[in-house]
């Protein structure tokens, strides 16, 4: 393998992966070959094994022998499986079971590009706080209002705008009677009923 100065920001790739088209698609994160039991080392406690389902079908024992080699070392062990066959049901069922037994996390990719994207993301987000998935709210009143009003099915942006500008405030819209809401342009009976019921439906299901 070519020896390059290793940085903490690079993905470490096992020489076994040489020739894998995934490598040519890793672009936004540096990577280098390194002697590691896993296929890819993506962080201090994260590693990934790569498995093409086409290969798996021919050599079903391969992945199990590889998994054995990386026991104990990593906290998060990803099995990056590439779905490159049509009859994926059986192998995927098997892998689901195996991931439970052997404690790794199964990630599916459908192209070399997508697989590379996952590897990049694991490296790039290694130290990121999970804020993006903890739920963020829209910044402005208009967006928030729209988000709020459009929760019941079938109510769209236009309806939200019409509703609030007709009643002035959300509170007035919430308290409006059915007949009043029905006078707003674009609000047919179904929408009116959904809105009316949604704001009056109890938060909790009564026991």
């Amino acid at each position, binding site marked *: 393998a070519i020896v390059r100065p290793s940085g903490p920001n690079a993905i470490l790739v096992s020489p076994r992966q040489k020739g894998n088209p995934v490598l040519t698609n890793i672009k936004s994160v540096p990577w280098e070959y390194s002697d590691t039991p896993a296929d890819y080392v993506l962080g201090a406690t994260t590693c990934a094994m790569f498995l093409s389902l086409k290969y798996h079908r021919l050599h079903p024992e391969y992945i199990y022998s590889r998994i054995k080699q990386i026991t104990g070392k990593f906290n998060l062990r990803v099995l990056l499986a590439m779905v490159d066959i049509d009859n994926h049901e059986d192998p*995927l069922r098997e892998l689901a079971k195996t991931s439970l037994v052997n404690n790794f996390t199964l990630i599916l990719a459908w192209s070399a590009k997508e697989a590379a994207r996952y590897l990049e993301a694991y490296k790039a987000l290694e130290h990121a706080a999970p804020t993006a998935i903890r739920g963020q709210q829209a910044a*402005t*009143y208009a967006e928030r209002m729209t988000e709020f009003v459009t929760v019941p099915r079938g109510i769209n942006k236009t309806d939200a705008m019409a509703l609030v500008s007709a009643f002035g405030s959300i*509170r007035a819209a919430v*308290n409006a009677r059915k007949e009043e809401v029905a006078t707003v342009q674009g609000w047919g009976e179904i929408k009116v009923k959904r809105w009316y019921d949604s*704001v009056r439906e109890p938060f909790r299901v009564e026991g």
Partner: protein
Amino acid sequence: MGSESAKAPKIKLSLPLEYQQDLFTELRAEDGLVVLARGLGSLRIVTNLLHSYDVAGNNLIVIVGADERENAWIGEALAEHAAISRSPLARGLTQVNTDFSNVSARDKAYGQGGIFSITSRILIVDLLSKLLNPELITGLIVLHAEKVVATSTEAFIVRCYRQNNKTGFLKAFSDNPESLASGFNPLAATLRNLFLRKPSLWPRYHATVAKSLEGQKKAEVIEFDVPMTSNMRDIQNAILECVEVSISELRRSGTGIELDDWTIESALHRNFDVIIRRQLDPVWHRTNFKTRQIVSDLVVLRSMLNALLTYDAVSFHKYMEIILASHQPPPGSSRQNQSPWLYLDAANIIFDTTKRRVYTGKPQVSTNGNQIEPSLHPVLEEQPKWALLTEVLDEIERDAYLNPTIRDDSNGTILIMCSSNSVCKQVREYLQTKDVKAATGPDVDSTGDDKEGPSAAYMMRRKLRDYLMWKKNFSKANMALINENKKALEGFTDQATAAAIYKSRAPPNKRRRVRGGSAVAANDRNGTDPPIPLSTDKSANVTQLMDNIQITAEEAQQKEEIVVDELIDMEDFFELYQMEDLLVVHPFDGDMDDQILEEVRPRYIIMYEADAAFIRRIEVYRSSHNDRNIRIYFMYYGTSVEEQRYLSVVRKEKDAFTKLIKERGSMSLTITHEADLLDPQEQFLRTVNTRIAGGGRLTATAKPPLIVVDVREFSSSLPSLLHGRSIRIIPAMLTVADYVLSPTICIERKSVTDLIQSFRNGRLFNQAETMLQHYKSPMLLIEFDQNKSFTLDKFADSTSTATISSTSQDIQSKIVMLTIAFPRLKIIWSSSPYQTAEIFEELKKNQDEPDPLRAVEIGLEAGNNPGEQSFNQTPQDMLRAVPGITSKNLSRITLEIKDMQELSNLPQQQLDELVGKQIGGQIHKFFNKNVIEDED
């Protein structure tokens, strides 16, 4: 009238027509699937059938799939029948829906027997938990049988019922042959799902039906083809052009939708947006922003087509302004994210013509180069149907005056049928005010015949006044909303300047170019540019316009229009007025219309809008009552969406029946699915533990495998499929996870759309957190749809390569984040619910069975009743959209506050006590911010 059934108790039925009686006897004799053409009164058959069972007493009959109105109708009809035949044993209908959620009360009600209409989700849970023992059910009536597909809850219910109960009756009804006939061998599939053998098809052209309806006297029908005004036609054509362009844009986006057979005619069809949405559905999660935008544009365009015909000119103009405003781009966004149709000349025509139907002015170029309109004056185009309606009413009056002699059983009432409540309201208002003389101001304009005779001028002038008032508020609201966007964009420092610009009105050349320089943008009359032209630089003109339509003395005498729909007090009207001079305006309401006809007994019916089913209802009504004369006026706009829709509905129904009849002809009649249904042998083999190898003794485990399923999951198809694989399903109220497979394994199921949604609002993060707290092996199941493509990969188009570098926004990055945050969380990928069921089975091998009681207790806070922990989804999601709401105060609010209405009305102080001062303030402001009055 009435055909007597053989049984002992006296039954009075109300089935006067031959086909109805045939159908009834057939249904009493054997089980079957009845497909009846719309308008032939399938509910009437159902209620008579139910009554015949009800009279006998001592039975438990369950109705599946009835909606709210049908329940009301069935309940009423049963009570009426019971009263007429004076049967002491009849118990009427009991409804079980979400309001009836108390388990013990349900238990008691089931014990008493009777006729129940039960919401599918509750019914399946009760059947599985044996709260409602399937063996005790006398029979099942399935309404809307077209909805029973293999994976539906209704199919699950029928299977559950048939497994445990081979003797009870089972009858299914559908009056929607179109959706029943879609797909390959649809009839056989539906029959199989329903465990039925015999289809019974009743199109309008069925010999007996035709004979029954075309017998002695036919109803007199007078048809009017009303031409649209040239303005309306222009608008309709322009909208259609927009639709066409949007669709070709869709084609170009490479989503592979097939619209080879696309014609303008199909655009006029009711559901073109739905059809396209359905075509895109398999790849929906991979479509890009633009595609979605166009699909939502199509929905808007279709509603415009509809509104053009139903709204009056002023309301339509108002609606168009709202649409335009809500499609305004947020400041700083590029043309890329705009709706393409807004750039078309056609869009310009739409907005322009719409306005011209309301008021006009001669544009002049004033000295400073600003385009101003010196004299606006109202045009107020009337809907062509109004004048015709007046004519028809006059004719009826003359007719009634000249031929007063016919004394028959019908009242002299005139019934006007419209498509919706809002049209009813419009017609009612028109009729009330058409004889009020409108102002004869300085501008005697194109309202035309203002000599004498009725016109809608008064109503339209009032509407225009309302509109101008509204417009002022709307501009304010609009500005408040957009201003804020702008502020957010420009950041805190620029705020002052921005505000200054707005206060001093932007100079003309500084106006944002809203729609990329299209002609629409130049036409600032539409009030879309933030420097609201109408309320500022044109205010003088508006005042003038306002003066033009000032209230005149005659007008002032009229009382203000009331908003509340008087139909609620319909019963009162019947007592107060003589039926002779009553004029009833009513919307089409499915099977409920039969009742209207029976109660009103009209001599004249005016169909203000076309409806194929209602014509049949009149036929049925007419044939059922020999002694009632009836005349029908039937009007529609020629070469309009309305006409096309009417014709295509009729054609489609006919095609559907033809297809079904053909299939029935070629169907093999020996469907023996009931025989192999859960062969006891097979059931035994399933439980055999095959782990004991080498010919050791076979030991059967005591019970089939077991999975605890959250009750909310029963709206999905997975429980049904698991059950189909002979897994025992225990429904339970789960606080943590959706499925519990073993004491250590729990699973949260997410469809791809759910996944995206719950990443966005953070729900999945919390769910993962609690699952990890309580289970050793929590798993996230990402389930793709059966018919959708099994991939998360985006289309390989140019835009997606551009966005791929922006991290943490696409779904892949979010999955990565989730697994980094929770290394112990496993992910299962499944291409369909079928596959999921297999995976579950695999995962359960060699695992202990879960303990349902323990599963329910997990995650409950001490002392909490399990019932209190379950939430209604929609209000919960709405609550999450309120600013300041976090997962912590969310549960506090749901415990303390009843519903959204109560929350919105809480005073600031109480909110502060509940969630703290800062968040309390946020919530209070969110609800109370007034976009009309607020200055900021």
